[in-house]
């Protein structure tokens, strides 16, 4: 056994650190926090120029051919540095789908711009009536002589305000079982009939509702077969290569330690208190476990090992632990803990208070904890299916 990511990852990590020291500014982080838009075009372009945007792609497709363990190092450094990379994440996820499922014409139209960092894309899967049950999408796409007419509404279309395209899951055949009547499109966001409406969130992140009224979409923007949209979504899951290791909860612990070690006028510090020590140690242990579950998933991917529901376990454990850690650590701060980022007396710069609000969404997005538990119970433990179809 060997629990080190390895020399390749270490070397890449050093490169990424150097990149971040050069290109990521405190102003960018502050700006993302103020606007709630976790995307910075300047940083995005620099990431593209350095080749990090699609670092996990094969070289012949414009990537760097990095393995999943190197990708863990990249993700860790980005997260620990606080880089606003939501745009990188969604754009790459969609670009990967295009690489595997889109026509050559569409790939040539979009992917070169993506790799240059000029094109940003966002996700249009969820709807007001379909979240976890994503295959129940109602947004309609109907064929006409010019292409397809799209009508409907999407929810949580984060970064639509800065994106060039949205990937849209639509219903093309209402007469068949729900998974069989879906078709995927890549829709230019400047198409007439699209309205983007901001939706503010508890975590300060700005997301959107997007409305589609008689939007004309040319057939060349179709991804995969007509009524084959579900297969396209599965492709994204199969080729999900972004690794997770240390993450937001490690930033949180670092913030809390900074606060706990602050010595007051009487030479006392919170870290001398056994209650504080217990909570900090608890978080340190759970962070180590979350990291290892992430490493296990990446290692399995790198070695094409059967990994079972390890991805679900990692997501479930990391997000649930983060929620608990943020709540417990905020409580330790006492009355000053209510103060927010920007107030001069806010402990740890207000970042623990912020984490407590932000954490709530992590057990909801990218598959709720309940969805993850069902996957683990069914695929990992072999228990009977407990959801509807």
């Amino acid at each position, binding site marked *: 056994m060997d629990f080190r990511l390895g020399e390749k990852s270490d070397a890449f990590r050093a490169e990424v650190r150097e990149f971040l020291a050069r290109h990521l500014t405190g102003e960018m982080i502050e700006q993302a926090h103020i606007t709630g838009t976790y995307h910075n075009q300047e940083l995005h372009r620099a990431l593209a120029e350095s080749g990090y945007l699609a670092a996990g792609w094969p070289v012949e497709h414009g990537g760097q051919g990095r393995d999943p363990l190197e990708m863990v190092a990249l993700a860790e450094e980005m997260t620990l540095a606080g880089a606003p990379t939501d745009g990188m994440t969604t754009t790459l996820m969609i670009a990967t789908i295009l690489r595997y499922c889109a026509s050559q014409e569409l790939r040539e139209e979009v992917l070169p711009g993506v790799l240059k960092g000029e094109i940003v894309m966002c996700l249009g899967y969820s709807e007001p009536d379909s979240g976890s049950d994503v295959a129940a999408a109602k947004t309609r796409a109907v064929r006409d002589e010019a292409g397809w007419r799209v009508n409907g509404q999407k929810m949580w279309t984060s970064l639509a305000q800065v994106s060039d395209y949205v990937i849209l899951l639509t219903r093309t055949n209402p007469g068949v079982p729900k998974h069989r009547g879906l078709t995927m499109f890549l829709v230019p966001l400047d198409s007439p009939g699209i309205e983007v409406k901001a939706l503010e969130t508890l975590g300060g992140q700005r997301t959107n509702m997007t409305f589609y009224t008689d939007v004309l979409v040319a057939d060349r923007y179709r991804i995969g077969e007509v009524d084959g949209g579900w297969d396209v979504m599965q492709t994204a899951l199969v080729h999900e290569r972004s690794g997770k290791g240390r993450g937001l909860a490690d930033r949180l612990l670092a913030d809390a330690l900074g606060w706990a070690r602050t010595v007051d006028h009487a030479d006392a510090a919170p870290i001398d208190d056994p209650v504080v020590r217990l909570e900090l140690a608890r978080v340190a242990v759970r962070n180590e476990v979350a990291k290892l579950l992430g490493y*296990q998933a990446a290692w399995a991917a790198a070695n094409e090992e059967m990994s079972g529901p390890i991805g679900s376990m990692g997501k479930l454990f990391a997000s649930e632990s983060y929620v608990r850690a943020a709540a417990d650590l905020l409580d330790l701060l006492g009355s000053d803990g209510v103060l927010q980022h920007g107030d001069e007396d806010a402990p740890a710069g207000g970042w623990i208070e912020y984490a407590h609000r932000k954490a709530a969404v992590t057990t909801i997005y990218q598959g709720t904890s309940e969805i993850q*538990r*069902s996957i*683990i119970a069914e695929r990992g*433990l072999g228990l009977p299916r407990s959801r509807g179809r």
Partner: protein
Amino acid sequence: MDLGLSADQRALVASVSSLLGTNSTTARVRQAEERGFDPDLWRRLTEFGAVAMGVPEAAGGGGATLVDLALVAEQAGRYLASAPLVEAVVAARLLARCGTARYALLDHALASTEPLVIALHRAVQSTFRLVPGGAVAGLVVGLDGADLIAVTDQAPGRARANIGSAALADRSAAPAAGSRTVLLAGPTAAVAYEGALAEWKALTAAALVGLAQGALDLAVEYAKTRHQFGVPIGSFQALSHRLADCATALEGARLLTREAAWSFGAEPDGSGEFGSPALASMAFVFAAETAQQITAASLHVHGGMGFAMETDVQLFFRRAQAWPQVYSGIRAEYQRLADLEFGPAGVR
């Protein structure tokens, strides 16, 4: 990075699992509960080399890594082995670190039908409190003041009634002349002893992982076969989701335990390589929490029958409490971990 087991390691797991599956059935565990010790199982384990494999080759042992030993401990936990295996392995490795002059003592202990064990608490008023295996052990290693000592030729201690049905007993650190050997004295004694305790934590964590796996297997099997309201109870999310949390924590505990064991390096060569005490402590607290979480959940899944002594889950439930707590409560261990991770309180 390599998170998989080698072919040799997989073979080791298979053979020790086979030995325990035959010789540590829950029926056998129940038979051994009064003494907390199964002499026939112990003989088979020692013949297999479960203790000697952990001794360095230079001292005549198998030179196994702590990862190998953790894999064996995990299986011992899985089958609730009625024997102080972890304590014996740690004691043997500690003796081997005390220099070639102690090899005769080690050889004698390894050849004996009575286990050798480590005392988990420093002697207070010349008494080692609640020594695991103390009611059956022929040799006890422990720290008495500034001395690391071995006590032999002493009648095993009086067994104490305990939740884990373990062979716990107090042992004297000041027996009759001739049976107390000072192995190390001064600072090196404490360093060697603390290192051994870190090994004990990592291996006990492994045993708890195995125990938790056994309890989870029972729960899953019961959830699939027990029907209420016309369906298997495992189809209810209130139950299946709790078990999914258990499976997740168990996977994490197993990884953390193996990481801790791996940190001890490849060869116990006596050079003072004690791995990461912080990782050993982390593995210990998390495996203990997880084993207690899973055995409680498994008991609950069994409904009223989970509370019946005839149902096996209670065997797991009681040991999940006893195995870690005979050393320390979990919160107290978190305080030790905090010292290792953040430095001692009050020190600037």
